[in-house]
């Protein structure tokens, strides 16, 4: 009887029903507030800021925008400023000061089509180096922006002239353990995952996981890249061990349909005496069904362990508590 309750439990703290489609929800660092991004049925974008008070969410601020907002990140902002970088359906990258959400602090037309995914690094006291924002769009390009350089991106990963383009569905930054090193990982709808090295401005590794890539994320952005998880269509996910790169085989991975255990030997030498990573195994800790509709986004609170906010296509945003994470 005690063992089922010793596993981490997913408890629904509360949920809030909204009157718009919410695409993304993120915690505001150093606070008990979170922001929801989405679009109204009339086709305009909306940003709402809620505060968690006594077991429910109070709406603090609301702002409407001409274009629906798809994604947002706090990754590239300082802890004092806490500006939100958003990408919208028109391909615009905007950075907002949440105290004054009417006019953006920084705005650029980043892409020709909708920005599907955005990520930031170098802010919030995590990692060294300049704050940078990466955006991935349906026009097949991935661009890295520095807010001090408004007119052109710092890096642009685009298909060659005359090449067919595929939608980029997700981007993630990682490997930011010193001032110069950065890596951008991008996932596309034809199953490609590409890893770009911003220090050498080159493609470091690419692979195809045979299903459109929904989301990629590094386990921690500010260390020498360790693990990369990529989730895809058909309910599959892959975990790559990023410490050992084989010249031809790339990074080793383990994939599961739907506690990453490291093997005792993380790398071994193969027939050519080149180091090959050894992927471990993953175990399911807990699962919970919260809604009949897909959950589009989930964000862990950077301040309170186990607290997370998730939003789904049932127009509901939920705050969950996950217990016993320290035992994992």
């Amino acid at each position, binding site marked *: 009887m005690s063992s089922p309750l010793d596993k981490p439990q997913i408890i629904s703290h509360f949920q809030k029903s909204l009157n718009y489609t919410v695409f993304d929800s993120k915690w505001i660092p150093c606070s008990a507030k979170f922001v929801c991004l989405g679009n109204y049925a009339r086709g305009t974008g909306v940003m709402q800021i809620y505060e*968690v008070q006594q077991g429910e969410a109070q709406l603090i601020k609301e702002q409407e925008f001409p274009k629906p907002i798809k994604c947002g990140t706090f990754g590239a902002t300082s802890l004092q400023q806490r500006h939100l970088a958003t990408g919208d359906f028109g391909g615009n990258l905007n950075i907002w000061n949440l105290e004054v959400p009417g006019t953006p602090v920084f705005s650029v037309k980043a892409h020709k089509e909708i920005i599907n995914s955005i990520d930031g690094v170098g802010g919030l006291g995590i990692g060294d180096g300049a704050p940078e924002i990466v955006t991935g769009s349906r026009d097949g390009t991935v661009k890295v922006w520095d807010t001090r350089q408004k007119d052109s991106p710092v*890096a*642009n990963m685009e298909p060659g002239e005359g090449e067919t383009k595929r939608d980029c569905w997700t981007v993630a930054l990682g490997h930011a353990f010193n001032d110069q090193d950065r890596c951008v990982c991008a996932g596309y709808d034809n199953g490609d995952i590409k890893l770009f090295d911003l220090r050498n401005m080159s493609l470091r590794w690419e692979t195809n996981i045979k299903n459109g890539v929904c989301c990629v994320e590094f386990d921690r952005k500010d260390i020498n890249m360790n693990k990369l998880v990529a989730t895809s269509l058909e309910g599959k996910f892959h975990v790559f061990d990023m410490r050992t790169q084989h010249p031809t085989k790339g990074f080793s991975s383990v994939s599961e349909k739907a506690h990453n255990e490291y093997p005792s030997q993380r790398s071994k030498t193969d027939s050519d005496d080149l180091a090959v990573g050894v992927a471990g195994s993953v175990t399911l800790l807990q699962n919970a069904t919260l809604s009949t509709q897909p959950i589009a986004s989930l964000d862990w609170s950077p301040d309170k362990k186990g607290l997370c906010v998730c939003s789904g296509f049932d127009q509901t945003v939920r705050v969950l508590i996950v217990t016993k994470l320290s035992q994992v």
Partner: protein
Amino acid sequence: MPLIVTDYSWTQTDSTVFISVPLKGARAERVDFLSTEEYLKVHYPPYLFEAFLSEPVDEDRSTAKVGNGVAVITLPKCSNAFWEHLVITTYDKEKKKEVRERALLKYQERLCSESRSKAEKQQAEKKYALETMMKLEKEERDRIVKRKEDEREKTTAELAAWQLRQRQTAETEAKLKLQDQRDRQNKLKAPTEKQEKGCSDGAKVKLDERGNSEATSQKTPALLPAPRRAANIQVRFTPRVFPTALRESRVPEEEEWLQKQAEARRAGNADVEELKDLREEERNPEWLKDKGDKCFASGDFLGAVNAYNLAIRLHSKIPALYSNRAACHLKLKNLHKAIEDASQALDLLTPAVPANAAARARASVRRGSAFCQLQLYAEGLQDYQAALKLDPHNAALQADTQTIRDILQGSATGTH
């Protein structure tokens, strides 16, 4: 007829009668007892012992024990009296029968009621068991729910406390800042007052600057590295024919579809012998059309005609092939063939939509010019006018139409 047993023996006490009946070798299971308060029957085929008791006995407490070849029946008396005889002797046959029947009925009733009460008891027990099970499970569930609730409340409380602390620190920070500002203002005020007496603006400005630089030096954090030097990285994607996202489960369907498309583009006439000699690309009408166009552009009209012929043989419904072949024939002065091909092209372009207007215009022009070269100027003019309707802004076309009109009028006036 059963054998009546008569060699039984009986004893009695004040409260009980004991009857012992020899079993004469019968097995214990085969002995059948029937007892009521006035009648006792022991039946073990072929033997039968019955006793019409002289006094009533308590049938509920009567017992029988079978063992050692003898059945001992214990009958507690209803009233503690001494029995002269065990059995009533003065019963006639009728009476005996009556008593027997009564006894049988009574016995059956007793058995019925016994079984009924047993069934009821069983049901009651089952119900009780079920209820206790449900209660236990409910308790378990409640326990889990309570633990979750506790966890939830704990987290809420922690969150509230943390928020409170945040607010307090924010307030103290704000107060400190305010204090700081006030201090700085006071500091600035004192020297500026002094300088005002000396009235030099430059000094005031300098002091203000110093005040500002103090403030800014507190604000500027560690210097950030400069933005990277911009660069482009070219990427190439794993090729994919379909614009939709790749899904493993759909791959077999997609492959099938592509194969069917490829087959449909190939030869319809698979029975033509020469086609077997052709290379893969020469079976593709599009490739042949390209080849024909290139030949036409470079002046090799016969080669172009050959290419178009083969393409038409492969796929006879592409209007562009006929139209282009008409152009080749025009150049080769095969005017009748040109007219045929142009007509065929126009036929194939029958749904007259804006999409094929350009193609129709071209085909009409070619046919028109073929007619004119055959000196059938009336038909030629018709075609040119049709082309002009489709493409009214083409100056060359307008000029040509005018020429033909003139020629017609000239010939009309010339011949009468």
